[in-house]
Every structure is written in C-alpha cells, then in structure tokens.
C-alpha cells in the first residue's frame, strides 16, 4: 500500500520585492534582485517554493568606519572614497550594496548635509551596477532630510531607503513613494510593533511590493535566539495568510556580529583559548548570518568579505532542492 507523506499545506507566502531597476525599467542598474517569495519555511523545499536565493548585501559607509583593525587590510585603501569602496565590494561579489550614511550623523563634526549625501549616492550609482540600499545616520530628523534628498537623487533606481520606524515613518514613506523606491521598516525586536508599522505604511499608500522588514536581529551570543523566534513567528504568520507579516526580512548580521567581543577582542585580551581574532571574527559573523538565514532572512547584510563568501557557499548548498 503506498504511503502518503503528510506535508504542511500553506495558504500564504512571503511577498516578493524587487530591488533595483535596469535601463528598461527606468533605472541604470546592471541587474535587479528579488527578495522573498517563499511559500514554505526556510529551505524546506519539499513543502513549498523558494524561488529566490537569499541575497547577500555588503555593508559600506560614506566615511571611514570605526570597525576593528582587521578591516584595514580589506578596505583601508578605499574607505575614504565611497565610490572606490562601492566598486570594490561589487568586485568582491556583493549582490547588493548597502550604504550607511553615517557621515550625516549630527553628533559628528562636519556632519554631511542632505545634498552632500545625495551626491555620494548619485556618484555610487553612476559607477556601479548593483542594486543599492541606503540607511540614514540614525537620527530621526536628519534621517528624514537625508533620505528625502537621496530619494530624489536616485529617482527611478528603485533603491531601498531606511529605516522607517513606528514613530518616524511618514517622511521616509513619502520619499519612497515619490521616487518609486522600496522602504525598510524596522521595529526593535517586537513583532507586534512591526505588524502595526506595516499596516500604517500600507494605509499611507506604500505598495506591498515595496516594503521590506528589518526585525532588528541580535548577534550570535547576544539574543539571537530571541530574533530567531520572532522571525519564525512572522514567517509562520505569512504562510498562514497574514499579509501584514509577509514582507521579506533583512538581517544585519555583520554589524551585530562585530559588536560582540568574541568577534573583535584581540587574542592578547581574549586569551589563547579563543584563538586568533581575525578568523574568529569572520566565523562569528558567518555563524550569525547562517542562523539568521535559517530563521527566515531574505537578505543578510555582511561586513567581512571572507564571512560573506562562507555564507554564499553555505547558501548554495541550502538552495539545492530537497523536494520529494
């Protein structure tokens, strides 16, 4: 007698969001990437479709970053020149360039103006072909001004602007709608607020195929299990038809992993049991990303190119279908 294997039947799926626009689509990107679209839990191809490989974005700043010393040998030659940096991460294999406009932080001396930020973005777009995500400096008022200018300068390129939060989303949403860009909505590891933010964005008129979520993940060893359960819950909601929980998810694996002393502490401070700092940090970042991909990440933001390469190889294995 043939045995019928019982499989979960889902009624919903993760919204598919396209990032970037080619010449035919009104932009200048060499290609576009698709986020989301899954109709099953992460990498369970035997219960549904996973049409798009999770995307690997490389992080860069518009100014020299305050990252650990091991990044000097990788980016030291380019981190004073955003265009050169963007070109370098594109060569290193980034699917997406993720630009943090830290230089516009009003806490800094010589904080960049919105116009200066817009020029940086424009120059990067002129010299690269990868889709782009842009994050503001993290100050609500300045974010609004900077992202509006960036949105105008990049009109038609279908970049992603972030981050919109529950108490500060209107101007960023307006900038996205004006320039036909995607928006990254973030909540502080709180699924209820994230859902409410998505509702408010859609009520304002942002199209569902333009919304990306950042549930604000923790790094390995620093609350990643809490992020995992929230992301799993959101994916589960998406699969049973909750459209306000069905947006593709970005995970800041690099920035979170490198905040951990396990990643950055030199061997002299950490002790010989921890091993050399550089391979340890790279592994810490790669493991953080691997866990977040299992939790349902549709895009991981990576900082160290060696970690990104490990994750890409890992993903290629995970994307081999296990359907039966």
């Amino acid at each position, binding site marked *: 007698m043939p045995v019928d294997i019982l499989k979960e039947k889902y009624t919903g799926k993760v919204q598919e969001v396209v990032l970037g626009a080619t010449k035919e689509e009104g932009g200048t990107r060499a290609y576009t990437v698709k986020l989301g679209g899954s109709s099953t839990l992460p990498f369970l191809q035997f219960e549904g479709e996973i049409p798009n490989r999770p995307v690997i974005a490389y992080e860069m700043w518009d100014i020299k970053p305050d990252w650990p010393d091991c990044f000097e040998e990788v980016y030291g030659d380019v981190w004073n020149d955003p265009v050169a940096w963007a070109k370098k991460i594109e060569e290193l294999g980034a699917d997406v360039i993720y630009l943090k406009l830290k230089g516009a932080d009003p806490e800094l001396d010589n904080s960049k103006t919105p116009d200066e930020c817009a020029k940086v973005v424009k120059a990067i777009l002129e010299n690269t072909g990868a889709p782009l995500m842009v994050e503001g400096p993290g100050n609500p008022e300045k974010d609004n001004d900077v992202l509006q200018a960036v949105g105008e300068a990049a009109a038609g390129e279908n970049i992603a602007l972030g981050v919109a939060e529950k108490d500060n989303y209107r101007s960023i949403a307006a900038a996205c709608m004006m320039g036909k860009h995607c928006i990254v909505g973030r909540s502080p590891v709180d699924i*209820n607020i994230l*859902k409410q933010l998505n*509702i408010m964005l859609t009520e304002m008129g942002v199209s569902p195929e333009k919304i990306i979520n950042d549930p604000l993940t923790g790094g390995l060893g620093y609350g990643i299990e809490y992020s995992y359960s929230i992301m799993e819950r959101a994916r589960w909601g998406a699969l049973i038809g909750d*459209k*306000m929980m069905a947006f593709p998810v970005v995970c800041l694996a690099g920035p979170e992993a490198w905040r951990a002393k396990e990643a950055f502490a030199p061997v002299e401070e950490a002790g010989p049991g921890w091993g050399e700092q550089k391979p340890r940090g790279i592994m810490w970042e790669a493991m953080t990303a691997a866990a977040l991909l299992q939790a349902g990440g549709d895009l991981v933001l990576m900082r160290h190119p060696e970690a990104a390469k490990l994750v890409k190889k890992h993903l290629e294995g995970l994307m081999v279908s296990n359907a039966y």
Partner: protein
Amino acid sequence: MAFYMIGERINGMFKDIGEAVAKFDPKPIQEWAIKQTQAGAAYLDVNVGPTATDRVKSMRWMVEVIQEVCDTPIALDSTNYDAIEAGLEICKKPALINSCPCERPKIERVFPMAKKYGAKIVALTMDKSGIPKSADMRVAFAMELLAAADEFGLAPDDLFIDPLILPCNVAQDHAPEVLEALRQIKGLSDPPPHLTLGLSNVSQGTPHRPLINRTYCVMAMTVGLDSAIMDVNDDELVDAIATADMLLNKAIYCDSYAKVFRQR
C-alpha cells in the same frame, strides 16, 4: 486564514432577497455581496429561498450576478443538488457546498461532486432521524463523514463539519453538547476538519440575539470552531471573533488587529 466567516445574508428567506430572486433583480443581491465582502466574509452563502420557482436557474443567476461585483468565494446553499451543481459549474473560485447530511445516498451525490469541482463541503452531523441530542452521536456522525471523505478522495480539511446548534430557548441542553462535540471532532483526524456552525440558530426567537451569538461563538472558538455561517455585518460579533482569534494566539497581535482581521 484563522477563522472563516460565511456571510448568511444572501438567502431568499430574507424579504429583500426573496423579492429580488422572484423578480430577477440583481441589485439587493449585489449590494449584500459587496457589503459582506467588505466586512471580511471568506464565503458568501447563497440560498435561492422559497420564492424561486426554478431553483437551478435561480442559483445560476445569483452566482452570476454576485461574480459580476466581487470575487469572494461562494457557499452554495441548497437541498437541491442539481442547483448546487449548476452553481459549481460557473463558480470562478473553489466553492463550498452547503450542505450534506450523514446519509449515504446524499454523500454519494455530493462528495464526488466536491471532488470534481475542487469544492469543500459543510457536512452535517445528522441523518434522516434528525439532529442528535448528545455529543457522542454528533461525534459518531462526524467520524462517518470523515471516513466518507477519505473514501471519495477528499482531505479531512475539505470538510466543514457542522455539529448543529439549536435555539437556546427551545433546546438549551444542546449548547454544551455541541461544545463537547466540537472539542472531540477536532481530535478525530490530523489535519483536523474545519468546524462550523449556523451561528444565528443559537439565538433564534430570543430578544438578545447579538449577545447570545457572540458569547456562544467565542465559547465555541475555545474548543476548535474555526468558521461560522453568521451575520458578518454584526460589528460587535466580528470584533469578538477577532479578539478571540488573537487571544487564542492564532493571529499576531497589533494595535489594529480587529481591523486587519476583516481584510482578506
């Protein structure tokens, strides 16, 4: 979708719909189709009622005029299976057949028809001798219906099993029996069948209808009810269902939970 609300209003038993069916006037039918869809109905129940002279023709016409204004799936409600089949032939979305009792000749007519058209079935826990009084008998009928589903190649969740509630002012003792039946039927198979009720029956003839309806619905949801044929335009009832759905941890909480519950 956590809870399937089946809008009861397009039924010839209501005066405005009865007149519309008699005169082939699409307006009241289309208005209620839109109004119930906006309220969050997962299915629109369609019953030609007693005024129709040709039930097959009227059913087909009602389905047509509803599909002109919305794409909400339709629950074809009739004891005339030819009328149901006429509806199934033109339904654009998979329909719900309302209903089939646990009687062999009717099962043999309805279940293959559901399979052919990809429809689901409201299956009643009763036979020719009427509605059983005890929970046990209701569960026994449910088991027979599930076995029949398997026999005809349908999945357990192709059935919306209705353990049949009676008005509390004439058969009060049925209310707890139905709750117990719901609880047990949910455990009969994995995946479980859907469970539904003709909710408005519970308050028939009483002066407290909305209060009784929403109280009983919430009670039944705690033992597995995941659908009801109901007044979807009773806002307090829908709010109560949305709240119970959230408190049962089936929908993720957000401040606008009652509003998003109504969005399909």
